[in-house]
């Protein structure tokens, strides 16, 4: 009897895709949780749907790997969440029975859960966490800018997001880890390099964010929940690594003025200073803290007082921040990049006008060693400070300008950062149309096309370093790159050439032989034409140049098939790129012509 392909005796277990993957509803049933809870667990544990090769239950289901599901099943958090659910029922019951005391009591003692185990499980090393921080940072920064909505987003969470994002920014700014900034339509992209990992994140523009209906907010909030915890731990680790106590205590006055970032930087100031000046005292105060836990409230009050005292530190003196930077720098060996970034805005004092986006610039300028102030209460220095070198302005200026300082648009700051030099302010003066804002995330050399302004910046850069400018068309080496692939071929090339030569000679001889045979057949008397052959060959020498190109082809032929395919793919890619660049050039040329014709 022919055994049916899919026949399975009743007792036997399933195998293959049918056994390995289960649908979502099956998973929910297996875990005995509600669907929202399942979703939450998946997000927290980092379990995501998969696409099996063969969808046993149909194409319209979402599949999970069985092992993933059992991974969730063994999570202690699952039990904890069940307990919480039961507890919520208790609260509900107390409410229903009008037992207000009990309800209140229960509410106060609500069980919570912690995500530290899960975070440690998902990111066993700190580097792993850093690698996965992009989405986390973007989400936290986004929610920090969202409006609180009844029943959907609590105010508390938004405040928490704001705090976390500021803490992160303060760290980056303080340690000068910021590398690139790109202002796009979507928002502002930042890239920092922390412990050798490039962390990119996106922050929204200072605009009211629209919350559309087609977004599942529960999913977003679940993600946010995990990310908040993750970022808190990451911040904690980073702060500890530079000897700053982690949950920072901020000056409430500055906090109220929405100058958290500045408050944080002051906190850094005070903290690291005390740490450097006498580490013993700090350790003492640390032990004092342990004691004071019992005292509770009074301590927190005194800490607040301390924070307020920080405010009275002489920060107005120029370079107060610099001191600190030195201190921090002493502890950590830095790479060249950081040193370069640190010095960019050295000895420059910025003042932000009311209309510019303060949050971003307050973060960016100190990250590159500048001092910055703004219009409003709590600012470190006033607008009429004599020592201000640059004032950031984003509207046409009428009169009232001081000669001692330059009035530039915010784009100048970003462009300086990306170019890593102080650009001439001429193009960026207030009221003018600034030069284009180039994306620092594009590798111009790799792309093969360099915009004009990038070219200019390069020249300025080399002029600043007083170096010899390399000839334009640097990208050529890249174009020649496929020949590197021919490395093996190159070795054989000489041999191959010789072989070709020989072959040619042989061919010529053979042809002659045939000719002679023909002639003999036709009865034409034999004549020595051996000398002709040499002529023939010499004539071919002129074609040798073309042959040289064919050389490559030949080397290609000698290669194994896979390598050849690779080479062809590379060549094709390069050709495509080249075509693409040509299109851009053409377009540009047309534009120029049209402009000329317009002028003319």
């Amino acid at each position: 009897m022919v055994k049916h392909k899919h026949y399975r005796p009743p007792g036997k277990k399933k195998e293959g895709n049918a056994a390995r993957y289960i649908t979502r509803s099956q998973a929910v049933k297996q875990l005995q949780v509600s669907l929202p809870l399942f979703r939450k667990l998946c997000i927290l544990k980092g379990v995501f749907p998969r696409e099996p090769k063969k969808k046993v239950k149909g194409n319209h289901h979402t599949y999970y790997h069985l092992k993933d599901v059992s991974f969730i099943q063994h999570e202690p958090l699952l039990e904890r969440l069940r307990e919480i659910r039961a507890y919520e029922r208790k609260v509900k019951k107390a409410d229903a029975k009008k037992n207000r005391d009990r309800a209140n009591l229960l509410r106060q003692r609500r069980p919570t859960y912690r995500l530290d185990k899960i975070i440690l499980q998902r990111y066993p090393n700190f580097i792993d966490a850093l690698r996965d921080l992009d989405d986390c940072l973007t989400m936290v920064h986004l929610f920090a800018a969202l409006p609180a909505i009844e029943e959907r987003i609590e105010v508390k969470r938004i405040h928490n997001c704001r705090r976390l994002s500021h803490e992160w920014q303060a760290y980056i700014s303080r340690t000068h880890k910021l590398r690139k900034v790109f202002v796009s339509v979507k928002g502002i992209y930042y890239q920092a390099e922390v412990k050798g990992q490039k962390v990119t994140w996106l922050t929204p523009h200072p605009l009211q964010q629209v919350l559309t209906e087609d977004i599942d907010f529960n999913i977003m909030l679940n993600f946010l929940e995990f990310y908040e915890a993750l970022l808190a731990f990451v911040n904690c680790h980073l702060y500890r690594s530079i000897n700053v106590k982690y949950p920072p205590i901020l000056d409430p006055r500055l906090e109220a003025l929405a100058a958290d970032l500045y408050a944080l930087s002051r906190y850094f100031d005070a903290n690291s200073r005390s740490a450097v000046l006498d580490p013993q005292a700090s350790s003492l105060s640390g032990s004092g803290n342990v004691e004071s836990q019992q005292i509770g409230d009074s301590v927190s009050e005194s800490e607040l007082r301390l924070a307020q005292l920080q405010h009275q530190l002489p920060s107005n003196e120029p370079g107060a921040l610099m001191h600190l930077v030195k201190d921090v720098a002493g502890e950590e060996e830095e790479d060249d990049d950081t040193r370069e970034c640190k010095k960019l805005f050295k000895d420059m004092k910025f003042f932000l006008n009311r209309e510019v986006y303060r949050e971003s610039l307050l973060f960016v300028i100190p990250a590159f060693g500048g001092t910055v102030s703004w219009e409003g209460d709590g600012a470190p220095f006033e607008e009429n400070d004599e020592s201000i070198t640059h004032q950031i302005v984003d509207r046409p200026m009428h009169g009232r300008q001081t000669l001692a300082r330059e009035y530039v648009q915010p784009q100048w700051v970003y462009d300086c950062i990306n170019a890593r030099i102080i650009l001439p302010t001429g193009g960026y003066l207030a009221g003018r149309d600034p030069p284009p804002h180039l994306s620092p995330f594009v590798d111009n050399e790799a792309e093969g096309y360099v915009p004009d302004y990038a070219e200019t910046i390069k020249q300025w850069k080399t002029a600043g370093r007083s170096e010899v400018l390399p000839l334009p068309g640097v990208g050529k080496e890249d174009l020649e790159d496929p020949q590197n692939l021919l490395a093996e071929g190159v070795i054989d090339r000489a041999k191959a050439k010789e072989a070709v030569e020989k072959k040619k000679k042989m061919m010529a001889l053979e042809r002659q032989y045939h000719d002679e045979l023909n002639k003999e057949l036709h009865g034409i008397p034999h004549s020595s034409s051996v000398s002709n052959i040499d002529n023939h060959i010499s004539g071919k020498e002129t074609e040798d140049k073309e042959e040289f190109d064919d050389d490559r082809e030949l080397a290609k032929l000698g290669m194994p098939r896979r390598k050849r395919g690779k080479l062809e793919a590379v060549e094709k890619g390069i050709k495509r790129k080249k075509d693409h660049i040509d299109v851009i050039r053409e377009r540009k040329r047309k534009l120029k012509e049209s402009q000329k014709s317009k002028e003319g």
Partner: protein
Amino acid sequence: MGKKAKTSRKGKKAWRANISTEDIQDFFEQSTKDALSGGSLSSAPAESLFFVDKSKDLSVKRKIEKHRQKVLHVESMLQKNPFVQAVPSSTLKKSKKTLKEVPKPKDATECGPQGSVSTSGMADLWGDKGGDNSKTKKTAKPSLIPAVEVEPPGSSFNPTFESHQETLAHAVAQEMHKVYKKELGPQPVPLTVPGEAVDEEEMYFLDADEGSDDDMNPENLDENEDAASEKRPLKTKRVTTVMLNKRARRKEQLKKEAEAKKAQKLSKEIDGLPDILQEIAKEDDQKHKRHIRRVVAKKEKLKSCPPRLGKHKFEPAPVQVLLTEEITGSLRKLKGCCTLVKDRFKSLEKRGLIPPKLNKRLMFFEDELSLEQDAERKIGWLLKLIFAGTATCIAYNIMPYMGDNLLQQSVSLLTVKDPLFKRMGASRLAQFAIDDERRMKIVEMGGAQELVNMLVDAKDDRTRKEALKALSALSPSDQAIGALHQAGAISVIRSTPDSLESAEIEKYKSGLLKRFQDLRYDIPSTNVSRSSDS
């Protein structure tokens, strides 16, 4: 008429004394009382007598609430009395022990906020152990797509012209893709079918016809059967032994012949074995190539969108790019994106972290075409045409096996009446015609004929130019030229008027005509027809 019957007077007279006058007395009493108290109550208006007592009135809702607030007696009995001390638990010691264990040694730096998730106890997670850590499950990244994709340089708030055009073109191409899909896709089944209303009488006839057929059929069948049964005995003839022998012989012969043929075929096949082997090898090679192509295409696809994870397909979010007039160069006036939440959500979907949801926007055609309309206004049709062309060309290069579909589309674009679509199709064909194979494919699909037709019908220079461009892109292939010649391209090209604006038309024309001359097609068409006749 009789007299009225006499009634007894006796009773009535006697009764009169007994009639009670209490009501009258009551009335008098009442009236005197009223007079004394000042006005009768019954005559007074209702308002003066009654009023609505609002002091203790509750709204219905509150009344219900109040009712609900009432604690049941049973419950109240069970509630804790503050004056009664709780009886200490008998298992006090044990519970204390557990209590001691529960509060964890908290860090000195306890952090404040307590949400649903406690982030308190900020011990450094990665602090104590530097390199060593327990082996954990290595989870593969669910997607190749980075979490935060940096926008192309054209999406800068103040981009360079070139990069901006580039990004804008991508955005337009995306939109145009949607439009094409809608236009070139199969037409939906109409909800109503147009037709003529049938008269009642005719309807009757229709029914009658059908009815009659139904009625007739069984009878017919019966008749046929009868006839057959009658004829059957007549038809059968006796088979003689001779005939049987003959048949057997014939059968044998046929069998032999078939065998011989088979053997011959086999020997032939054996002779042609190398050919067959070659064919098989070729087929295998092709299969292998197709497989590789599919794998590569799949990988490419995974880089741009997630695998199918649920009921719905993932739909990418539109490109965020400023329109030309929106570029101000000032950060303050920037019209930035304000749907970043949606962007993040889409990113989650794109990375395959959550199964995609149905796009609600698709159901109500809200602002689907907004960008496209803007772009139309801004950059004009021609630019759009070129951009769409380049975009599709790139697509063709990347996914060669999808190309035939695109080619078919382009050719069908030529048949559309609108000159814009004609131009679009022509430009696309010009982009595709890179090698002879593709050119032949275009010719096979009837592209050459369509192009010539387009050139004939063309009313403006741009259309003519595009057509000529496509034709000249086809011209390097000899077979294609032949096909063009058959389509009568020469006379049409000759008759195409030169234009003052674009010298390109002339260039294409001369190039094409030269090509025809090279291949000796350039004899007057009449001659050709004559030669073909003879």
